[in-house]
């Protein structure tokens, strides 16, 4: 096989660190294929990718050894901007990748730096914007785009440079399911047009999308390559994959649980459909653990949040009508998942509920436990409803974990004893009690997320809004966060969780609300929502993979819409 990239004996330690983040890596990346680089958070995936275009060690110093050959060229002999003609990188966070002050300017930036003729630059700009569904946005300020749209813009800018090798670090984390598919379709289209070697990293959050498109997979853990080959072959090694704590596709989990002796385990929906059609029900055995339906939290009935006819327009150029008469209630005990495509108004609605934004129309009603959020001052409403931001670093500023969690209750003017009680309870809930007196200096992403959550829990609001609470987290930490939020609901509170993760929503939410273009399309139980394919399609969403498997197999005729592998097997047997 002709290899686009060859890596020999690559090792790397960051400056001022003792951790061998890359440890004698030897691998080759096949040309014109999509290679998935997967592994848990902290495995070294991003570090490995940053070596491919010379950013490590040129701009990110450390102890570097080994060789990297890009299309036969020794990368150590070239500057990053020279390698940029061959290799381009797309980061997970789009905000700081975007350089231009309008959409079209940003896409033109890369081709202009390559010194291309003006006509060619604009031809590539228009083609890229068309591919990324951004036609009509040319004159917009990129900051007016939603997070997902910004990521599409970042990709458009890179695609316009027409690289031979595309390196993407968790690029679809912020995209809705249709956006994810669109990005990979674009990659496949470019690949078939002119060939494109693509490497995509993932920590598990988008493993299902990745597996649908990857030709080749590399599994990393603790700075080493654990396995490489076709995804089906890698996921057949159940113990190996489970040791890395990497999340697996639902269809893979299904086949693991029904324990059929297979050399290759399905990782794609189409493979699972084919495999399931050959399975005899008598062959399906229960796993060692009892398979049962996922428990759902029951609501106690009191309405905590009432929002009626909420409208909001962002006064940008052109104005953007983000909310168009939204009505929503949230009851005590509910964990509501708020889903929708990028730009549907989810975060705007959440910021209204918490009182940061005020509706554009005077007849809008937003009440939390009877308090009018539109009129009440923030210091009154924050004790009723609070917000866990997607980026916890926007809030963290104290020296120690304990001081951070104490801050909110202190600002509320609570007595010392109560502050102490709440601090201990909040840290304990997220599993950080032993780190109470530790300094925050070198927080991991997981610790930062849990600390951000604890600092809101210590204020003991009745309603918690969590914006993408599991973004960038590994599987165990994601599970921890969701369990904490579920406990909150069981204790009589309520949670509104904004997420793109259908599996998460189906497993943990008692209710799902889908938004599109500033309106609520559907509001109901997970099974009600995920069984309504017409509405999901309108909202550019798709049900969990296991539900789609049941639909493909024609198992949903009797209103059977499994949301988890466990439910699927329960329904089968």
């Amino acid at each position, binding site marked *: 096989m002709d290899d686009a990239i060859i890596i020999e004996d690559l090792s790397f330690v960051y400056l001022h660190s003792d951790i061998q983040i890359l440890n004698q890596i030897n691998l080759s990346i096949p040309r014109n294929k999509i290679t998935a680089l997967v592994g848990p958070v902290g495995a070294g995936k991003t570090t490995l990718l940053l070596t491919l*275009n010379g950013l490590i060690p040129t*701009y*990110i110093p450390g102890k570097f050894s080994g060789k990297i050959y890009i299309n036969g060229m020794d990368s150590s002999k070239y500057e*990053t*901007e*020279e390698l*940029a*003609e061959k290799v*381009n*990188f797309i*980061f997970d*966070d789009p*905000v*700081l*990748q*975007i*350089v*231009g*002050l*309008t959409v079209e*300017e940003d896409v*033109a*930036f*890369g081709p*202009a*730096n*390559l*010194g*291309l003729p*003006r006509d060619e*630059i604009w031809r590539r700009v228009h083609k890229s914007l068309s591919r990324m569904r951004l036609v009509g946005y040319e*004159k917009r*300020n990129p*900051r007016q785009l939603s997070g997902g749209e910004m990521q599409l813009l970042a990709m458009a800018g*890179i695609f316009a440079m027409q690289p031979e090798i595309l390196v993407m670090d968790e690029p679809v984390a912020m995209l809705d399911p249709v956006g994810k598919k669109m990005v990979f379709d674009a990659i496949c289209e470019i690949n078939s047009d002119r060939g494109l070697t693509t490497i995509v990293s993932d920590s598990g959050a988008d493993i299902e999308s990745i597996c649908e498109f990857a030709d080749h997979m590399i599994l990393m853990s603790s700075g080493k390559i654990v396995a490489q080959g076709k995804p089906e072959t890698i996921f057949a090694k159940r113990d190996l994959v489970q040791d890395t704590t990497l999340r697996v596709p639902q269809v893979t989990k299904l086949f693991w649980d029904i324990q059929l002796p297979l050399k290759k385990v399905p990782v794609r929906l189409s493979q699972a459909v084919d495999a399931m059609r050959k399975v005899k029900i008598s062959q399906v055995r229960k796993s060692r653990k009892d398979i049962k339906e996922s428990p759902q939290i029951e609501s106690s009935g009191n309405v905590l949040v009432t929002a009626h006819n909420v409208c909001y327009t*962002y*006064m*940008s*150029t052109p104005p953007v009508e983000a909310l168009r008469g939204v009505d929503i209630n949230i009851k005590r005990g509910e964990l509501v998942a708020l889903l929708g495509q990028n730009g549907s108004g989810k975060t705007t609605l959440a*910021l209204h509920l*918490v009182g*940061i934004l005020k509706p554009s129309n005077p007849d809008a009603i937003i009440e939390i436990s009877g308090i009018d959020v539109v009129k009440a001052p*923030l*210091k009154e409403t*924050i004790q009723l409803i*609070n*917000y866990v931001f997607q980026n916890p*670093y*926007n*809030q*963290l*500023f104290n020296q120690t974990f304990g001081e951070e969690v104490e*801050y*909110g209750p*202190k*600002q*509320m003017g609570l007595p010392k004893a109560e502050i102490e009680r709440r601090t201990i309870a909040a840290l304990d809930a997220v599993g950080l009690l032993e780190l109470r007196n530790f300094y925050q200096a070198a927080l991991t992403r997981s610790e930062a997320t849990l600390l951000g959550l604890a*600092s*809101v829990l210590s*204020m003991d609001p009745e309603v918690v809004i969590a914006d993408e609470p599991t973004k960038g987290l590994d599987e165990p930490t994601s599970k921890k966060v969701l369990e904490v939020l579920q406990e909150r609901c069981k204790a009589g509170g309520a949670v509104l969780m904004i997420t793109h993760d259908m599996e998460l929503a189906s497993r943990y939410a008692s209710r799902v609300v889908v938004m599109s273009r500033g309106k609520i399309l559907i509001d109901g139980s997970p099974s009600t929502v995920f069984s309504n394919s017409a509405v999901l399609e309108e909202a550019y969403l798709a049900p969990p993979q296991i539900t789609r498997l049941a639909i493909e197999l024609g198992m949903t005729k009797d209103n059977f819409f499994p949301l988890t592998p466990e439910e699927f097997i329960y329904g089968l047997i």
Partner: protein
Amino acid sequence: MATMFEYEPHESPIHNLNPVTKIVLFLSLAFLSGLYLDPRLKIPILIIIVMICWNAKLPFKKYSGLLWVAILAVLFTSSFRGIFMIKPGYFKALPTEFAMTELFQITPSDFPIFGRTAITYGSLLWMSAFPLTTATVVLAMAGLVHTTSSSEMIQVLNSARLPGQAVFVIMVALRFIPEMIRQMETIQKAQQLRGWHVESRNPVKIARGYFPLLVPMLRIIVESIDRMTISTKNRAFGLRTATGIRDLSFRTRDYLITGITSELFTLALYLLFKYQIGNL
């Protein structure tokens, strides 16, 4: 809506000018306002800048906070100097009798350390000049950035043969400053939700009160500078001279405005240095 010091495309006559014309126009007005000491000439310059910015649809409301803070800070420092300007030698252009006419005394001559301080017509004119310059310069810079996209600015700087590193710094600033302002707004909202507020009038307590905003901000600034540097290199910035993506040829109105501005500026300088017109 654009935040402070951020480009926003509009179909305004100012937006449609060549970036060189805009640079000449805004910088000439700002520079002249800085050179003049007489507020009676600064006021018309400020009015011209305001009218230009209004035509360009600058979001004045976004700048009101900054302008108030800057003007008050400058007024405080200039006032502290101005109350000592009670001797005739300070004013070269104003008639001495007029300049020394005392409006009110602040401290008598036997006041310890400071001695006699007072506000005169001369010192009043002098003190009011600096806030006017501050407002003019802020609005001029705001107007220039608001009406000129980064690609146009880079194109002009490249054609002026500025070193690549200097172009890079300016480009990052154009992108970075509005981003940091937005981040500050997000951090402020996030901390307000945790009960953050600053109510004290004690300056030390006020400064300490902003700590919850500054720490996350500094962290973000450091990370952002790193990431932005990497992002631009990743897109081949500095590989070779970038192609200008816009057609920046001069049109008739550009020649007209640049010519008139340059001539008026030269005339103003001549009158200032030759006849002290604009001096106090």
